C-alpha cells in the first residue's frame, strides 16, 4: 500500500503514455490483418499482404507521395520564414513588436475549420483554382507560427555569453552568426522543421477545404472510409510512424552521446 502511494504518479504517468499508444498499436496490428469484407476494423487473420504489396491499391501510394512532397515544400518555406521571424523577435528592437506577436499567436488560436474555410472563401472570391498550390499556401500559413514559437524558445534558452565571447575575440557579426549562433540554434530549427513536417503531412481539415480534387494521404483515407480503408493505408501509416520514431530516437541518442563525451572532455561528472 505504501509502495502504491509512493509510486502512484509514476503509475498514472505510464498508464497515460500507454493510452496515447493504444490506438497506434491498433493501427499497427490491423496493418497485418486480412479483413472480412471491406472494412478493416476487426481482427480476422494474420497476413503480410498489405506490407509486401504496399502500393497494391490504386491511389494510396500516389496520395502518400503527394503528402510527402507538400510536407517537404511547406516545411522548407515555413521553416525559413519562421526562423527569420524568431530571430527578429529575439534579437532586434523594432516598432510593431506587439502586433507581430499577435499575428503569430492568432493562427494558433484559430480553429482549423476557420483557417481552412476563410482561405477557401478567399480563393473562391478570387476564382483561384484549388489544388496543389492552394494546399501548399495553406500549409505554409499554418505551420509558420509553430516554427516561430519553437525556434524562439531555443534562441531565448541560449547562453548570451557564448556570443559575447565570440565578439570579444574580435569575430565580426557575420562570423559570430556563422560559427556560434547558427550552430547553436540549428538543432532547434531542425526540431521545429520536424514538427512542421508532421503538422503538414497529417493535416486533414485545412487541406480538405482547399484541396479541390487533389488527394493527399489524409484526404485519401477520409474518402476511402465510405467504401473501406485499404489495409495498405494502415501499413503506410505504421511505416511513417516507425521511421519517424526511430529517426527521433537516433537523434536523441547522438545528442546524448555527444553531451556525455563533451562533459567527459571538460571533466564534469554528472
Amino acid at each position: 500500500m505504501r509502495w502504491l502511494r509512493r509510486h502512484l504518479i509514476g503509475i498514472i504517468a505510464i498508464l497515460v503514455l500507454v493510452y496515447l499508444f493504444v490506438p497506434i498499436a491498433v493501427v499497427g496490428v490491423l496493418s497485418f490483418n486480412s479483413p472480412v469484407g471491406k472494412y478493416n476494423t476487426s481482427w480476422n487473420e494474420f497476413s503480410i499482404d498489405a506490407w509486401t504489396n504496399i502500393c497494391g491499391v490504386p491511389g494510396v501510394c500516389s496520395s502518400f507521395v503527394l503528402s510527402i512532397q507538400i510536407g517537404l515544400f511547406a516545411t522548407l518555406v515555413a521553416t525559413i520564414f519562421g526562423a527569420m521571424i524568431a530571430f527578429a523577435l529575439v534579437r532586434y528592437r523594432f516598432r510593431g513588436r506587439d502586433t507581430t506577436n499577435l499575428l503569430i499567436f492568432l493562427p494558433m488560436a484559430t480553429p482549423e475549420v476557420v483557417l481552412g474555410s476563410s482561405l477557401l472563401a478567399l480563393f473562391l472570391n478570387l476564382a483561384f483554382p484549388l489544388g496543389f498550390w492552394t494546399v501548399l499556401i495553406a500549409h505554409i500559413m499554418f505551420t509558420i507560427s509553430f516554427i516561430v514559437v519553437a525556434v524562439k524558445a531555443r534562441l531565448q534558452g541560449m547562453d548570451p555569453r557564448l556570443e559575447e565571447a565570440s565578439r570579444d575575440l574580435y569575430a565580426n557579426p557575420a562570423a559570430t552568426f556563422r560559427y556560434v549562433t547558427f550552430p547553436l540554434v540549428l538543432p532547434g530549427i531542425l526540431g521545429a522543421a520536424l514538427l512542421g513536417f508532421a503538422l503538414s503531412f497529417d493535416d486533414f481539415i485545412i487541406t480538405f477545404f482547399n484541396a479541390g480534387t487533389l488527394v493527399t494521404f489524409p484526404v485519401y483515407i477520409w474518402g476511402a472510409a465510405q467504401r473501406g480503408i485499404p489495409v495498405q493505408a494502415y501499413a503506410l501509416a505504421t511505416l511513417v510512424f516507425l521511421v519517424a520514431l526511430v529517426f527521433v530516437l537516433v537523434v536523441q541518442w547522438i545528442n546524448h552521446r555527444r553531451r556525455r563525451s563533451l562533459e567527459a572532455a571538460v571533466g564534469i561528472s554528472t
Partner: protein
Amino acid sequence: MATTTSTPVAATSVSTQRRPRTGYLLLLPGIAWLAVFFVVPIITLLITSLQAPVPGRSGVYTLGFEVSNYADALSAYWPQFIRSFVYASIATILALLLAYPLAYFIAFKAGRWRALMLVLVVAPFFASFLLRTYAWRTILSDEGAITSFFNALNLLPDNRILNTPIGVVLGLTYNFLPFMILPLYAALEKIDPRLIEAANDLYARPFTGFRKVIWPLSLPGVVAGTLLTFIPASGDFINARLLGSPSDSMVGTAIQVNFLQFRDYPVASALSFILMAIILTVVFIYIRRAGTEDLV
C-alpha cells in the same frame, strides 16, 4: 507553446547593437505571408458572410450587407454551437486531469528517461490522425471489452460508447492530449525542485504543498495547455463524424457541410466567423484573468 518569461536582459543586450532595418527585413516574408493568407482571408470571410444570393443561380453570391445570414446561421445551428463548446470543455478538463500527472512525472521524477518520455508524448503526431481516430472505433466497438465492461457495471446510458457523445468526447480528449502535456511540462520543468522540498518541509500534507506551491507556479502551462486543447477541440468535426452519431454533430460539421456540400457560402462563413469571434473572446478573457499575457 512555450510561455516565455526568459532572459529579457540577454535579449536587449544583444539587440541594441543591431540596426532595426535588418529586423524588419527578417520579418517581411513570413509576416507578409500571414497577412495575405491569414488576415486577408478572415476579412474575406466577413465579406462573404454578408453576401446575398443571386436569384436563380445557386451557389453564386454578390456583395451585400445581409446581416440576416448571421441570424439564419445561429437559428439553424445553435445546438451545434452548444454541443461544440460543451464537448470541448469536458474534453479539455479530462485532458488536464490525464496530462498533469504525466507532465509532473516527466518534469520531476523521470530522471534519465525524461528525453525518451518527451519523444513518446509527441510520437502520436507521427501516426495518422484519421487512422488513430478510426482505431478508436475498433477499441470502443459495441462488442469490445471496454464497452462490455462498462455495460456490466451499467454505467452507459445508451449501453454503448460508439456513436454517442461519450465517444466524441473520448476521441477529442485523446487527439488533443499531447497539446496539453507539452505546455504543462514546459511550465513544470521551470520550477526549482528545491521549492517542492521546501513545500514538503513546511506543509504537513503533500497535497497542501502541491496546492500552494506547484499548482500556482504551473498556471502558465495550465492556461496554454487548456487553450491549445480547447481551441482545436471546439472546431473539430472529425471525432463527431467518426465516433458520434449524426445527432452529435458539432459546429465544424455545419461549416464543412455548408461550405463544401450545400455551397451556402454566406451561412458557412457566418458560422465560421461566429466561431472565431467566440473563441477569441474566450481566449482573451481567459488570458486576462489568468494574468499570463505572454503566451507566444
